[in-house]
């Protein structure tokens, strides 16, 4: 062999640093466009942004509220990342969040909620994980058995989950103590099943640091564990995994169940940390904002907490905007959407490639592996 210099890079893969830089630029651009929108409706953009920021971080109370909002978002985003890195597009995180929340409420309000010490909390979180995982199972089984596109089935399962939750909470599980006319809810969690808070008198629970730790764990596991390696190989090159003799079906199911479980814990975070009961209708956007947050940072596990914080701040800040500036909180939604519009083509071209590939995937002897 003649020794040559390594061939030039064929297709530059943007580094995580570059990707987050792009994400940052997109956020700034979105802010500019949002400012133009504000100016167009006759509001002072600088004041509005000030209001948005104050609403999210102005006082310690607001910062705490933002962080409380961020916790389930981190988990929902991580849920998406786990599946996405394994070659599965789990569009149904929201459904898994809802079912996880319901399961967590059912466990926490039952005798399990009276378990001694931290066991009750563990039971609530575990029930959430179980509920989310169970709800993620049918889409991945359909994919494995018949090559059904999991994007569609998991998304449809979300609607089923919402309606099922409405039925259960308004019907068989409705708390009798609640006044007629009030929003329906289930029996409250037993006191011992409340998630412990890390900041006194706030809704910042133990799950916030745990969710950040989970992000690091996911990052580590994808690199250093055999299971993570298999998931990543499946995600990057399903045919190479298959021809290498890996149990690709089992790997896909594992990836999806892990993803569903994490989404379910996001539901447990809402029930155990905020409502202390399951409500109907359930907040409709946690799972979807999780997907957006994950894609914002190119499905990088380590960056998901930051992306989730941005989304948490926008939604909390939107309230401040309305209260202090008289600007509709929906402007925060406009900003969120604008961020996505700017991020889609720039931040993570390879992620979007995968999205496109999955959307096009059809069952076939070589396309998807049966």
């Amino acid at each position: 062999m003649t020794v040559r210099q390594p061939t030039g890079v064929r297709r530059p893969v943007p580094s995580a640093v570059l990707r987050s830089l792009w994400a940052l630029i997109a956020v700034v651009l979105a802010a500019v466009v949002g400012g133009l929108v504000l100016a167009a409706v006759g509001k002072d953009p600088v004041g509005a942004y000030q209001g948005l920021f104050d609403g999210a971080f102005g006082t310690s109370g607001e910062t705490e509220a933002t962080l409380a909002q961020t916790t389930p978002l981190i988990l929902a985003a991580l849920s998406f990342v786990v599946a996405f890195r394994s070659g599965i597009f789990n569009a149904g995180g929201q459904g898994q969040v809802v079912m996880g929340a319901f399961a967590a409420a059912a466990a926490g309000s039952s005798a399990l909620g009276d378990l001694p010490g931290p066991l009750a909390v563990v039971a609530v979180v575990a029930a959430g994980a179980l509920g989310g995982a169970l709800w993620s199972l049918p889409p991945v089984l359909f994919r494995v058995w018949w090559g059904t596109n999991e994007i569609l089935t998991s998304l449809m399962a979300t609607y089923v989950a919402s309606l099922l939750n409405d039925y259960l909470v308004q019907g068989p599980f409705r708390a009798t103590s609640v006044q007629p006319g009030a929003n329906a809810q289930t029996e409250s969690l037993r006191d011992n099943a409340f998630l412990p808070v890390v900041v006194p008198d706030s809704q910042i629970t133990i799950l916030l640091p745990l969710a950040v730790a989970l992000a690091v764990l996911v990052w580590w596991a994808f690199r250093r564990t055999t299971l993570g390696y298999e998931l990543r190989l499946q995600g990057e090159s399903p045919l190479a995994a298959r021809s290498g003799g890996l149990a690709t079906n089992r790997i896909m199911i594992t990836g999806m169940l892990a993803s569903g479980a994490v989404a379910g814990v996001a539901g447990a975070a809402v029930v155990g940390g905020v409502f202390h009961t399951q409500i109907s209708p359930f907040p409709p956007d946690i799972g979807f904002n999780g997907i957006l947050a994950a894609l914002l940072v190119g499905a990088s596990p380590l960056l998901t907490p930051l992306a989730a914080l941005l989304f948490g701040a926008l939604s909390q800040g939107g309230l401040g905007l309305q209260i202090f500036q008289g600007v509709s909180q929906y402007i925060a939604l406009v900003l969120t959407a604008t961020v996505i519009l700017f991020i889609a083509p720039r931040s993570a071209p390879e992620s979007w490639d995968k999205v496109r590939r999955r959307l096009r995937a059809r069952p076939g002897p070589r396309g998807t592996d049966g």
Partner: protein
Amino acid sequence: MSQQLRADRGVALGGHPGPAPLALETVGLTKTFGPLVANGDVSLRVPAGTVHAVVGENGAGKTTLMRMVYGLYVPDSGEIRLGGESVTFNSPRDALARGVAMVHQTSLLVGSLSVADNVMLSLKVRGRGARRAVVDRLAELSRDNGLGIDPKAEVGSLSVGMRQRVEILAGLYHDARLLILDEPTTVLTPTEATQLFAVLGDLTERGTTVVLVTHKLREVLAVTSNVSVLRGGRLVAEAPTAELDERQLVQLMVGREVSMSVRDSRPAATPARSDEPPLLAVDDLVVADALGVRRVNGVSFAVQPGEIVAVTGVEGNGQRELVDALVGMTAASSGRIRLAGEDLTRASIAGRRRRGLGYIPEARPTEGLATELPIQDNLVIGQHRTRRFARRGIRRMKATRDFAREQIQLFAVVAAGPGVAVGTLSGGNAQKVVVAREVSKQPRVLLAVQPTQGVDVAAAFAIRRTLQDLRNDGMSIVLVTSDLREACDLSDRAIVLYNGAVAGERTGDQLTEESLGTLAMGISA
């Protein structure tokens, strides 16, 4: 050597009195990517109205050079001249406006649109009238140049070869005077390739100049009039093709003498151990596709220990389906596959691999490798759970890295380290990673599918050598290849597939390209 060839250039372009007019000339083109000098001071001279070859190994800088000529890259320094006039391109659109068109190896056309609509995508005109004009002009150009393209045909319904012609046609529509073809025959059957070269010949007679980027030397010798050789980003020779033979070309490309025929290195006395039972035995194998068509129709063959059996033929005669059934990617409809006497017809992929089946797939970037994962991760696929590379579900990264370093050295993979993504390697080096992985698992039967396709000369040589060494160590190797020469040089025995069945078997003196070619065309001998 190269100096001498260059000195001969003056008299080289026989036929033309004095220096021939140049369609394309580059003067001292240089392009660097960070520390990598992709092209250093390249001065290329392409006479008008010729088919001009640009050859070199993978990574020699062919693609970079061509990308500068058609406007995708801007040179760091140097000059591009078209017909003697200095030009600066900032985009392929600029280049097209000056008559430079590129025919890509993998088509960039939109499959769901018609030929004419694809051409219209690059125009700024819309509307039915404009479309009719485009259709008429394309039909005329197709007829005049013998391209045989219906402008209204949907691109997706055309074969790969026809799609290439569509790109040529699109170039002609834009009055291209210089057509660049990047490895056009990699994706073509031998017949399609011959037809393509006939078309190119016609085009040059009408004054178009063709630059053919390739590393298939027989093509160079057969159809080009001049050849430029790149090595390590520099132009090392430029001469009339007639003055060179294959051996000299390889020397120029590789920079030293390479023993051309692998047969040279074959030890005299390694007869296949025919007295031993075959390691792989395929009996009356039938593989039907989803529509029930028998893609493999009753194929039987056996491979002894220490034997290379080539499975060859024109692509699409059941090779891929046979391979899929042998590996377990698809199920056989009937028949039997035995490995060392054990029936594996119904075994899983993992089961077959556990019992000693190695597999070098044809589709390197999708089936062979995960291009975005590092070399070390690609090298342990299938072995990642063994005690050597993992304990209690935790990967042993140091062992993995050390193993990768060892394999990189053993197979002379040119890479910065075990942590680089495989997708950044050249075709030859990426293939060496696949070969290293499969060989390191010490299979009993190795199934190698087009192992040297899209691989540079030196790497191809190394891979062939590896296969022979393994054979000499007693492995059974099935070499699936559509390169008849490779089949002859490398195998002890060759079977030819035609229409899903074995058209014949050749061994010993009868193992010649001619006899295999006859069988491959379905002509019974």
